[in-house]
């Protein structure tokens, strides 16, 4: 008998179909990778199996767990299944735990809910489970806010596996985590599945994660499963066009011309950025150094990558480069002039920026024309607004008439095009791309990378490409720098660094990054 059988699962809100006739089977101990872009229905499928979908959604279809029809159970009986027979792990570890309860209580809760276990025995069990997920050194009485993101995700996993369920559903469990932490969490999940013989549904947008983890794969698009099969087969011989397109986009490398050595536009020397320590009863804690003596230079037309995990200081460095915050040591020179918090407008116009969040980067009340033209504030003699905006819109592949619309009318990818247009309109020497493609689906990401490569060649603009995503940086940069704890630990030609990293930290980063196996069809 199969572990899980989903038959014809359909979900709709009113007349809108969100999930259409989703069916699949899972064997005990099997890892199923459920892949798709945002909005494809992966999470809805997971919540549908758990029967945790919002009430406004109407659900049809059968869900059999070891032959028992979950869809027919009363809510009370279903509560007895959740956590005991099916566990679930969510994407966002920072908010998935109750901030007011200790982690020990939260793990013990699963045990106490489903078994007649006393308080002390449940805590004992919680201790064992936390040990198992690699938190031997963390006390039961700690609160979530005292733990790192990766540690919190281990606690969430501990809650889900405390009673060794037959099926574990993990919804993008590592998307919010740094790459080394992602590697550790994936290893942990794989170990737990193997040890307990659990089935695992791993939901992800990242084909490389599936390649590393899963036995079988189901590819979802617009609420349907379009292709399924063994991972090795599907990744090497995809039959559906959508799977092929996803694979191609995942390994996409924009075509870029090699360039000759050119003049330096941005020079950073021994830059230090420190924050005053937190206030204490008397005086302050010692200052926190976020950037500790960083030096590099960026040449005209060059694409330079800056890679680092969260907390490495890369965003702090970015704010200093943009002249938004003062530096406490060293100097940033842009075109030969010193860039700091008091820099004049004439200097500021030489650097532009594209941020990560395609949704938070624009004032929702402004028209696209006004948004794109906002940097004209830096010019003493701004050209007529409308023609300039229309021209730059065309450059980034949008229509001139888009200038009259508001930002909510655009998709994530289109918004990033608008963000690029806003940076480009005053023709800066340097554009700082701060995780500019990290929030995008793979296909859109490939298009934006192509656009960036084209614009770089056309306008001779230099990029400083800040990202935590090594594969993206590898695809688009000439040189790369690796940042850790406020310092640049390694830098060099991108291919050279990726092919033969010198520093242990770089090797660790590369090893942790899931990659699609070589030689698969695209």
């Amino acid at each position, binding site marked *: 008998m199969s572990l899980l059988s989903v038959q014809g699962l359909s979900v709709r809100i009113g007349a809108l179909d969100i999930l259409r006739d989703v069916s699949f089977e899972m064997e005990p101990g099997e890892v199923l990778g459920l892949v798709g872009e945002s909005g494809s229905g992966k999470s809805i499928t997971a919540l549908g199996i*758990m029967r*945790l979908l919002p009430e406004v959604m109407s659900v049809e279809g059968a869900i059999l767990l070891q032959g028992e029809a979950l869809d027919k159970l009363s*809510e*009370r009986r279903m*509560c*007895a*299944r*959740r*956590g*005991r027979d099916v*566990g*679930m792990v*969510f994407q*966002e570890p920072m*908010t*998935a*735990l*109750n*901030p*007011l*309860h200790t982690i020990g209580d939260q793990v013990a*809760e*699963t045990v106490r*809910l*489903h078994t007649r276990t006393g308080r002390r025995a449940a805590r004992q069990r919680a201790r064992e489970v936390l040990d198992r997920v690699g938190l031997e050194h963390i006390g039961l009485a700690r*609160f979530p*806010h005292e733990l790192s993101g990766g540690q919190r995700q281990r606690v*969430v996993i501990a*809650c*889900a596996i405390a009673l060794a369920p037959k099926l574990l559903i993990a919804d993008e469990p590592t998307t919010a985590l740094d790459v080394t932490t992602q590697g550790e969490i994936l290893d942990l999940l794989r170990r737990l599945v193997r040890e307990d013989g659990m089935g695992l549904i791993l939901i992800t947008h990242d084909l490389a994660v599936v390649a590393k983890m899963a036995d079988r794969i189901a590819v979802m698009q617009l609420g349907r499963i379009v292709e399924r099969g063994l991972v090795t087969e599907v990744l090497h011989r995809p039959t559906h066009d959508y799977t092929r397109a996803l694979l191609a986009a995942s390994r996409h490398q924009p075509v870029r011309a090699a360039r000759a050595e050119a003049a330096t536009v941005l020079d950073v020397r021994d830059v230090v950025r420190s924050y005053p320590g937190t*206030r*204490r*009863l008397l005086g302050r804690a010692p200052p926190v150094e976020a950037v500790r003596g960083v030096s590099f230079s960026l040449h005209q037309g060059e694409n330079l990558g800056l890679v680092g995990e969260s907390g490495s200081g890369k965003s702090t460095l970015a704010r200093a480069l943009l002249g938004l915050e003062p530096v406490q040591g060293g100097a940033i020179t842009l075109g030969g002039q010193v860039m700091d918090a008091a820099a004049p407008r004439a200097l500021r116009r030489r650097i532009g920026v594209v941020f990560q969040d395609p949704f938070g980067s624009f004032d929702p009340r402004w028209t696209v024309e006004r948004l794109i033209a906002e940097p004209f504030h830096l010019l003493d003699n701004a050209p007529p607004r409308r023609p300039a905006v229309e021209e730059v819109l065309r450059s980034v592949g949008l229509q001139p008439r888009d200038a009259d619309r508001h930002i909510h009318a655009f998709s994530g990818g289109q918004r990033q095009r608008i963000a690029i247009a806003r940076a480009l309109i005053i023709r800066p020497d340097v554009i700082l791309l701060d995780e500019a493609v990290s929030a995008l689906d793979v296909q859109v990401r490939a298009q934006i990378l192509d656009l960036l490569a084209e614009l770089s060649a056309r306008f001779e603009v230099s990029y400083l490409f800040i990202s935590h995503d090594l594969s993206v940086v590898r695809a688009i940069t000439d040189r790369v720098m690796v940042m850790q704890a406020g310092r640049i630990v390694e830098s060099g030609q991108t291919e050279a660094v990726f092919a033969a990293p010198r520093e242990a930290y770089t090797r660790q980063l590369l090893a942790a990054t899931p990659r699609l196996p070589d030689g698969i069809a695209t």
Partner: protein
Amino acid sequence: MLMRFMQRLFSLIVTLIVASILIFCVIEVLPGDPAAFMLGMNAEPEAVAALRAQMGLDAGLVARYFTWIGGWLTGDFGTSYTYRVPVAELIADRVWVSLPLALYALGLSTVIAFPIGIVAAMRRGRAADYGIMGATQLGIAIPNFWFAMFLVVIFAINLRWVQAGGFPGWHDPVAAIRALTLPAISLALPQASILARIMRSALIDTLDEDYVRTARAKGLSRSGVVRAHALRNAMIPVLTIIGLQFSFLLAGAIIIENVFYLPGLGRLLFQAINQRDLIVVESTVMLLVMAVVVVTFLVDLAYAIVDPRLRR
């Protein structure tokens, strides 16, 4: 934790000092000469001068401020111009009406608001929710002193369950509580309505949190999640409102005491202001402000009990 406590304590003290200077300025500096006020328009200059000396008004402003504050620290608030008794005695009598009244009303409003707020949140979008929301909307709109008048008509005049007004004193606790019951109910009605709405929206917000979904995935039922997780998290905004309400209840008590002829701080204030007995006004206002500030401080400390993130 200690750090936070000391910070709050410091800002409490600064607020009190600035508030006392403000009150002192308004009462003693701006409106002119209290001695002349007391003796009336046609008083002899010598008489005024003598009274000034007797009241200590011929000392410098700063010296007078410190005399006042020094008196506060030793429990000597001066002597009432009209009653000719120590202000401290006057206030001490009245506090034991106003403070129990405010606390009684606060307790009532909490006891009423919590269950109906929780029911509304759990039945969100259904008939019970709409009914409760409509009733609380009405409860907020009813002026408490108007509501109090009709309570008097119904329960004191028609049904004769309680006295229409007055206060028998605490030597007979049952009678005292009976006398405070109608005032407390009328004070509590609008506050309970507000609190119920806050409870509902706070609970709805927490029910949308990720950790609630995690708890559901562990197998908790909807009501189990509310009990084990959502309620305590919802207490954070609710506590803020309870703290603010104490201030509103004190203010409301000042007015409600007039409806029920209760000899509390409110009545004292109005009598004092009508008789321009400003020394009584000064210390009574200071006392009320102090009560508000101290309650805000206590609420701040209560946050730390609820929320471990604040216990540093």
